[in-house]
């Protein structure tokens, strides 16, 4: 190659070295001809250590042993595994670290010689982000389950304790009435009446314990930066934002103080609010979907508002929004907002909904800046 176009060589080298991705050029036997600066950074070898050596040294097993075979088969049969297309592979750094990469290979013929040009994009950063995101999602799902359980049991406790109270009272009343009517009561019947009351109180205690258990779901509070929490949450919506074309903007004052919160729980509130906004925008057919997240500080409080142009909430349903089991979505359970409210309360804060203008909905999370617990 050098021999065929010596006059362009300087320009060509500069071009190669300015590329962000690693570019490696090999010949038909797999011998490295060019190893640009990005490749040197990515693999940890200098050009001198790699050029004129076989490309295998940059591959972990099993690709390392198979590569010669690939090249030979391609030259003979023209059947390409990678050449002409791209795929995700693994690379081997000088340090011995194996990393994920996207590899695309092109073919170039220069005066009877065949060269292969590989362009490599390091995926480790991206994979790391993806893993982190997956972890975050899993944490959120787990926390969500715990809270949903807590919310369900709280709801159940309320619905069940009332009839249990009535059952116990009826049993006691029946026993007493029979006694007063001078009916001779079989001791077994007296025993049974006593047990009815006892057992209904036992049932109530079970529900109470379950509720306590769900509530004690480990809450880990520390000082967090709210903007950081919001950015993390928006990562989860990256795909949906692209798919739906909904724009999310963050407005925040400078120098916001940290808040003492359980990060996962606050993320849960925000995920719920953003998800609600997206659903509302999609449902009302709004073409220019827009969600604005604002963070402001008032004396003693940090306000986070999530506002959308998704048609607004009918005035009559505003007061019911935060009730458990209330939902406007056909597939919803109606626990999201009531869980959010409970989280806000557990942080000494509140969650409210306002209609700033027709067609818009705004949820405001207020968190106290001075708070113990």
């Amino acid at each position: 190659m050098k021999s065929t176009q010596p006059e362009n060589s300087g320009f060509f080298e500069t071009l190669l070295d300015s590329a962000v991705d690693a570019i490696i050029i090999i010949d038909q036997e797999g011998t490295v001809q060019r190893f640009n600066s990005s490749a040197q950074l990515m693999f940890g070898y200098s050009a001198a250590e790699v050029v004129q050596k076989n490309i295998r040294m940059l591959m972990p097993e099993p690709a390392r042993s198979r590569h010669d075979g690939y090249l030979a088969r391609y030259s003979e049969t023209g059947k390409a595994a990678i050449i002409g297309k791209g795929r995700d592979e693994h690379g081997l750094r000088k340090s011995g670290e194996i990393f994920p990469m996207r590899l695309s290979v092109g073919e170039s013929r220069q005066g009877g010689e065949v060269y292969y040009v590989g362009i490599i994009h390091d995926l480790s950063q991206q994979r790391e982000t993806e893993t982190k995101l997956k972890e975050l999602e899993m944490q959120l799902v787990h926390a969500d389950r715990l809270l949903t359980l807590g919310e369900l049991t709280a709801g159940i406790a309320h619905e069940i304790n009332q009839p249990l109270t009535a059952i116990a009272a009826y049993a006691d009343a029946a026993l007493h009435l029979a006694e007063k009517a001078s009916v001779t009561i079989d001791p077994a019947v007296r025993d049974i009446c006593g047990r009815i009351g006892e057992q209904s109180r036992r049932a109530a205690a079970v529900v109470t314990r379950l509720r306590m258990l769900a509530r004690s779901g480990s809450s880990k509070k520390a000082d967090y930066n709210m903007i950081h929490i919001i950015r993390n949450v928006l990562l989860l919506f990256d795909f949906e934002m692209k798919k739906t074309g909904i724009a999310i903007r963050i407005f925040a004052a400078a120098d916001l103080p940290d808040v003492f919160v359980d990060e996962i729980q606050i993320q849960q509130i925000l995920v719920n609010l953003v998800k609600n906004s997206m659903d509302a925008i999609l449902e009302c057919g709004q073409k220019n979907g827009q969600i604005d997240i604002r963070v402001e500080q008032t004396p003693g409080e940090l306000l986070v508002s999530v506002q959308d142009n998704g048609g607004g909430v009918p005035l009559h349903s505003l007061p019911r929004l935060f009730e458990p089991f209330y939902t406007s979505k056909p597939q919803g359970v109606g626990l999201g907002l009531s869980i959010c409210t409970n989280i806000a309360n557990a942080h000494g804060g509140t969650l409210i909904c306002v209609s700033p203008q027709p067609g818009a909905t705004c949820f405001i999370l207020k968190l106290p800046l001075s708070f113990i617990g």
Partner: protein
Amino acid sequence: MSTENQVCIIDDDEAIREALKLLLFASGIPCTVFASADQFLANERDEGFTCMLLDIRMPGTDGLSLFHKLIREKAPYPIIFITGHGDIPLAVDAIKQGAFDFLTKPFQHGELLGKVKAAIGVCRRERKKLQNLHELKHCYNTCTPRERDVMKLLVEGLPNKGIAQTLAISPRTVEIHRAHVMEKMAAESLPDLVRMAELLSNFPDGNAAQTEYPEARD
């Protein structure tokens, strides 16, 4: 270090302990902290505290046991429970047994400060009352038996002449006794003396330490 006028904080969670201490300190309220009820009990008992903030769930002796012990011993300061796991019966019982208040975590600074200040106020008023009573007792004890007789009749509203007749002494002697009584009791006027006599008769044994907080019920 004297714990006079300090708030006593007992909580096994260091973060909470420090946060409470800082918060109260910022409001000019000095504190002494203990990491457990046992640590508190291991120290020489100090009755100078103006208020106690007590966690319920603690390793070793728990907050409720310590509370019962202090109530039995008539600890001369209000006790406020702070707990992360308060249920209704627990809270209600604590109040019925004489806890000053019951706070469930999380709580806001203002809420806590308000309650602590109220408790300190109650504690100070009760102490002042008690101290006055002690002083009054002391003054009364310096009076001679005859002077006490005169005082008794005086506060009943008898004029000098009537007192002289009742005690079969001369009005001039009554005059002298009366002057002594007023001086020894440091009373400025007859109504003042009447008020003092009333206080003394309300606490015949001088033991006003069983401080009854208005909130306490049996």
